[in-house]
């Protein structure tokens, strides 16, 4: 997944920068310059080079990369889009389905695999957060607001999800799961059959 790529890029980059900085610190400990050196002759390298130019270039690249990935993950119009609703409360989730307004499930969200799904997230009481780590990042469930999260499961299966915003004493057990179905099972689910 794209976010995992970002993580590996950043982890390797950060490790390299950490080693560079610590190497410079240790080299500074070993250096034996004359202690009377009170000049500012290191300024071009330390301030202009490492202090200003180095982070600006690195960060501009990283921010641009991150925003590009972010744009790709936004909910956009798609022909085979499925819309579901997720309503959080202390400490359970209710899911409803645009394809059949009568359908309702508790703590298990059913979606078709291989198709983009928009989850319309809201909350009945306090702030919660909808998070299925394998499918997408998290998005908060805020009372009075509806946030739309785009998820897509590549293969059928069960994906663990949990609320990721502290919500009181039942927070630790505030979990749910996502069932991704192949087309036949999805059709059966919509017809009210056992998924």
């Amino acid at each position, binding site marked *: 997944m794209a*976010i995992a790529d970002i*993580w590996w890029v*950043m982890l390797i980059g*950060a490790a390299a*920068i*950490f080693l560079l*900085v*610590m190497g*410079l*610190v240790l080299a*500074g*400990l070993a*250096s034996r*310059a004359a*202690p009377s*050196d*009170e*000049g*500012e002759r*290191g*300024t071009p*390298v*330390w*301030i202009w080079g490492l*202090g*200003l130019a*180095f*982070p*600006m270039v690195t*960060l501009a690249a*990283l*921010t641009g*990369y*991150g*925003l590009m*990935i*972010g*744009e790709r993950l936004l909910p956009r119009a798609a022909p085979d889009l499925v819309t579901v609703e997720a309503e959080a409360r*202390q400490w359970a989730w209710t899911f409803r389905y645009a394809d059949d307004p009568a359908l309702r499930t508790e703590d298990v969200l059913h979606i078709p695999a291989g198709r983009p799904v928009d989850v319309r997230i809201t909350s009945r*009481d*306090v*702030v919660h*957060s909808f998070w299925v*780590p394998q499918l*997408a*990042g*998290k*998005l*908060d469930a*805020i*009372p*009075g*607001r509806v*946030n739309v999260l785009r998820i897509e499961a590549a293969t059928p299966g069960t994906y663990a999800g949990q609320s*990721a915003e*502290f919500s*009181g*004493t*039942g*927070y630790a057990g505030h979990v749910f799961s996502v069932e991704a179905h192949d087309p036949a099972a999805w059709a059966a689910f919509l017809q009210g059959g056992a998924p």
Partner: protein
Amino acid sequence: MTASSEAANQGPAERTAERPDQRPDQRPDQRADQTPAQRAAALRLHRALMPIWSSDQRFRGWLTTSNNNDIGTLFLIVATSFFLIGGILAMLIRAQLATPGSAFLAPEVYNQVFTMHGTVMMFLFAIPFFEAMAVLLLPGMLGTRDMAFPRLGAYGLWVYMFGGSAVIIAMLMGLAPDGGWFMYPPLSSAAFSPGIGPDVWLLGITSIEVSAISAAIEVIVTVLRYRAAGMSLARMPIFAWFILIVAVMILTAFPPMILGSLLLEVERAFDWPFFQVENGGDPLLWQHLFWLFGHPEVYIIFLPAAGMIATVLPVMAQTNLLGYGWVVAAAVSLAVLSFGLWVHHMFTTGIPHMGLAFFSAASTLVAVPTAVMIFSWIGTLWKGQVRLELPMLWLLGFFATFVIGGLTGVMLAVVPFNWQVHDTHFVVAHLHYVLIGGYVFPMIAAVSHGDPGE
């Protein structure tokens, strides 16, 4: 108390006299333009003024004192006690989290413990501890007898003691707030937290903020108006620069938090609508107000410690600081930038991606002035000869830990990655790297530098 006050006042002055960039003719006992008679007259005047400036010698002097050394010492002792309490709470959290599903603490207790750990460390330890250092050291560094508005300083101390102990006493009675140290409504609203805990939090924390604002006013006036003759801003000890910048930040960042606390308290007490949807409020308003304070707060905590590093590290390297002006400029730009990125705490609240892009760029941008400081310090190490004494060892710990904290911070500023790790232990780890490495280690270095115990 008078004698100890005098001795403490000498401390910083003597230290700065040892710095290589200090000219020997600035030593107070070697001034060539004074005759022995003038010196004797000055000494007589000093002795005549001492009773006016010093505190009551009896025990009640501790309660009525307005001397900066006494206030600073009391501040330091109280803040350190709260640090120990916060540490004990951290151990309880770790004990609970050592095994999954542990029955060590019930959820009700655990929620109080983790809420109080964050509250104590942020509000009762970190801010007052650097205020204590500033009150204690600034007059000595600036060559003045006391802080401006000494009674305001005493007021700040006692308001802080009141607010801090109110929160701690509530915790000992089992009535501590349990809605997280960020107190998001509606969880902290009357409907979902009916107890007295959030009220104690809001009133206690507001007291501590009032105390911080009074300290900030003192610092600003002291630095701008009370410097010794001939000490221009550009010649101040660099710690004074950092603490001046922090004081201006406090004056700007704390009012939104005080406003938020007042609104939430009014909502809880009188059912006025600010954060409840049913009555037309919006829970996101709290998050904006809280983080508009909460993010500058991080730099309010880091910059005094950075000022300590910029003071101690050149002594350890036996040279002067590389790029004094650059470091000051970096601190100023950090202060300005820190007010433009609070939304990176709210990347997952459904704010449009274009808005997030602005805050993401601003969040990565703060790494630039931080890098200027870090590399100025490493350059200082390179051009000097480093003495590996105790404060320097703590500063090495700062470099390793804080750089990891900074790099993980840049990762968190990347929006899609943030969507995954927001509200996870990645954030917990990041903020502890930053605060332990960027605040606790330098402050311990500063304390051990100021009092080597010899």
